[in-house]
């Protein structure tokens, strides 16, 4: 059937067009070569569509929206006979310029569509832009017909996740990565077998929405510094083109979708770190990219005299609980779930999303409630970084509606202190190992994203190798980055050839990994920690596009024992559902044991309310309760003391025996099941034992830890 609205009604200098459809916002392909353009502005008095050939400074067409093309606050038109592979587009808008009252219209600026599905202008990472070009971030049109071959988001139960946080470029940019397309989405593809071997089932990517690596770029000591992490969004709908090897051909979306599809085939979810709290437009001195020139009053939180509130620490704050912005954020998240099959989101400085239009925290923020209950987002994971730069700290109290999990900053702080022998943290550690019921008692351990390191701060190796941050390379006189790292260098600052110190560092990394992967809650690992990657003491590598940030894969070979330790612990966690239980059950299980118990050097004798450095904790996993093949006792002896400590092992039922699964010590002191009912742990070490049915009494005697 031929529709009568498939034909143009207007023509201007050979360009044919007609009134468009207000929904969906953005640019959508219509037929073979038509594009529907639709954009919102509540205060614009004039709107013009500009069409460009790829990379050309001057537009080949400027089409003003006739008054009859505006419905409400939406301008829309369909333009015909466009070569969408060669097309770039933007808008010019006019309206009042009255900053004191929030209006900043400037007809001379060319504006990026907030709903652009692809943005060019930074297609090749680090390639110097043409700064004279008035249109730096240029909207592109994509075909939204990707063949997913039956793929969908994996919907792995939250309690079963092991999250692996990484940066697309850092992960494979270094020559040592050995991949074909280094530092790109396509490069990540080649590391899927590695991730599978490690055993993680969720990869969380630092921001991949289009951002400008040249924002605040500068040269320090001959080294160009970038907006490397990308926590400064240019467009919420477009993948970072510079992360795609195929971006010069306009294929960034396809490349990312293929990565997600292949990750899913490997059983690995893909989660995005998203930044909705502010944009790349900065404060009053910042550039016009998009929102400022389209509807400044709507998109940003403004002071009574028209300045930008700065709860993000980055110059501006998105007006997240405004109905228009709320819908914009919701539309974006729905798009990433529906069109990219994204499995979950981690929201940067999420507490900003709970602020009202005056910046005050709300008890029931409409945006967070909307996201919690949205139909399309119904099965995807929502994780909050539950604080902001304006002083709001909501760990344990983030408005969750039973849906939101949180990065547990208290877990990080407590674990770091305990590992470096802070006995006062012992009592709190008990709560953290249990999944933080003190914080999430009315919810579940699934709300607690447990981590010791993340992109923000020291890597694990640096945490045990540096007392102080070493950020001089950032060009801020070492004033940037946190001073409260709870780190300990084990006896020498930075690199050393002291064997005892190096040995202690290895143990400390394993101790941290052991506690993390045996805690209830959701473990998150910083990529590279599993082979002791270093940032050379830089705890804020946000601007470092070089060896400081790039993972050095040669360390994987050097630190194979650490990798194996992580791998063993992840596999063990995967096999034992008792470790992943999330409902804070405190009763006895069907074997007559408490499911999780704590012990001193003698079993069942322990004062968990007084400071301590050595203790044991035990999970009991009855097969009948968990559907496993056999009953399991899981005992972890932890010695954060600077001397050796012996632990008497808890008695287990007749016919069962203990077996060592992993030991962080390097003294080869393993539990001897024939002679001992105790283990002696060297200073600052951890041992995991598995109590199971004696092998020689089991059918086939097959090992199953």
């Amino acid at each position, binding site marked *: 059937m031929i529709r009568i609205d498939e034909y143009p009604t207007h023509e201007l200098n050979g360009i044919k067009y007609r009134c468009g459809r207000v929904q969906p916002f953005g640019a959508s392909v219509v037929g073979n070569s038509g594009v529907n353009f639709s954009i919102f502005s509540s205060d614009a008095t004039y709107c013009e569509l500009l069409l460009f050939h790829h990379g050309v400074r001057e537009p080949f067409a400027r089409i003003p929206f006739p008054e009859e093309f505006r419905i409400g606050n939406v301008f829309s038109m369909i333009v015909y006979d466009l070569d969408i592979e060669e097309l770039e587009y933007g808008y010019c808008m006019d309206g009042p310029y009255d900053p004191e009252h929030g209006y900043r219209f400037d007809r001379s600026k060319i504006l990026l569509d907030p709903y652009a599905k692809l943005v060019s202008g930074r297609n090749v990472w680090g390639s110097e832009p043409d700064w004279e070009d008035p249109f730096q971030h240029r909207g592109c049109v994509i075909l939204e017909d990707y063949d997913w071959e039956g793929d969908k988001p994996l919907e792995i139960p939250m309690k079963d996740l092991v999250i692996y946080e990484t940066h697309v470029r850092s992960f494979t940019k270094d020559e040592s990565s050995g991949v074909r397309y280094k530092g790109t989405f396509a490069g990540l593809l080649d590391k899927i077998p590695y991730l599978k071997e490690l055993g993680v089932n969720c990869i969380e990517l630092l921001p991949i929405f289009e951002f400008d690596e040249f924002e605040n770029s500068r040269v320090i000591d001959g080294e160009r510094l970038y907006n490397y992490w990308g926590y400064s969004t240019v467009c919420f709908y477009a993948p970072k083109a510079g992360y795609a090897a195929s971006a010069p051909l306009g294929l960034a979306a396809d490349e990312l*979708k293929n990565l997600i599809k292949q990750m899913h085939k490997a059983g690995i979810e893909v989660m995005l770190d998203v930044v909705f709290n502010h944009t790349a437009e900065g404060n009053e001195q910042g550039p016009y990219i998009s929102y400022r020139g389209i509807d400044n009053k709507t998109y940003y939180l403004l002071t009574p005299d028209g300045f930008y509130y700065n709860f993000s620490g980055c110059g501006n704050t998105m007006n997240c609980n405004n109905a228009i912005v709320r819908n914009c954020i919701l539309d974006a998240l729905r798009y990433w779930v529906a069109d990219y099959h994204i499995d979950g989101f981690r929201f940067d400085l999420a507490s900003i999303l709970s602020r009202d239009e005056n910046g005050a925290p709300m008890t029931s923020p409409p945006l967070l409630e909307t996201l919690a209950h949205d139909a399309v987002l119904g099965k995807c994971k929502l994780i909050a970084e539950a604080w902001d730069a304006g002083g709001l700290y909501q760990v344990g109290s983030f408005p969750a509606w039973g849906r939101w999990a949180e990065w547990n900053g208290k877990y990080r702080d407590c674990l770091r202190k305990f590992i470096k022998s802070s006995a006062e943290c012992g009592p709190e550690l008990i709560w953290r190992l249990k999944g933080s019921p003190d914080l999430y008692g009315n919810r579940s351990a699934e709300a607690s994203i447990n981590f010791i390191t993340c992109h923000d701060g020291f890597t694990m190796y640096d945490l045990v190798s540096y007392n102080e941050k070493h950020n001089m390379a950032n060009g801020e006189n070492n004033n940037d980055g946190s001073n409260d790292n709870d780190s300990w260098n084990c006896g020498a600052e930075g690199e050393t050839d002291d064997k005892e110190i190096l040995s202690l560092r290895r143990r400390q990394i394993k101790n941290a990994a052991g506690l993390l992967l045996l805690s209830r809650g959701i473990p998150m690992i910083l990529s590279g920690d599993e082979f002791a990657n270093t940032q050379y003491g830089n705890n804020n590598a946000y601007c470092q596009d070089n060896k400081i940030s790039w993972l050095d894969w040669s360390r994987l070979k050097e630190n194979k024992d650490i990798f194996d330790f992580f791998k063993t612990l992840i596999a063990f966690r995967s096999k034992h559902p008792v470790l992943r239980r999330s409902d804070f059950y405190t009763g006895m299980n069907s074997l007559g044991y408490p499911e999780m118990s704590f012990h001193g050097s003698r079993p069942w004798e322990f004062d968990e309310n007084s400071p301590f450095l050595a203790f044991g904790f035990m999970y009991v996993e009855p097969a009948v309760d968990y559907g496993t093949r056999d009953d399991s006792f899981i005992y972890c002896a932890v010695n954060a003391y600077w001397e050796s400590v012996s632990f008497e092992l808890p008695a287990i039922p007749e016919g069962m025996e203990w077996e060592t699964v992993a030991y962080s010590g390097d003294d080869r002191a393993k539990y001897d099941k024939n002679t001992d009912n105790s283990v002696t742990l060297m200073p600052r070490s951890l041992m995991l034992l598995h109590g199971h049915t004696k092998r020689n009494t089991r059918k086939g005697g097959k090992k199953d830890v």
Partner: protein
Amino acid sequence: MFDFKVTENAGEVDVVLKGRLDATVAPQLHEEMAKMQGSDIKKVTFDVKELEYIASAGLRVIIFTKQKLGADTQIFMKDVNDDVKQVIEMTGCDNFVTII
């Protein structure tokens, strides 16, 4: 400029592509490939020795061909230069086509 030539022999189809397969010409090729739907085609080989450019719309014709002709039809691409090969690999089009 873009040009293509399709020949069929006993259920095996050869498609020679030359020049720039961009969004303006992809619909022509798409239309030609669509005609094969329902035929007993066992093998389609795209000869891309003289193909200079392929991107979004062109890749979709390849994928469309695979989808329409079904799982029993093998799709090959031969004489692939490095630029085209990289596009195929980076976007995962090699899930649909075998490079020979």
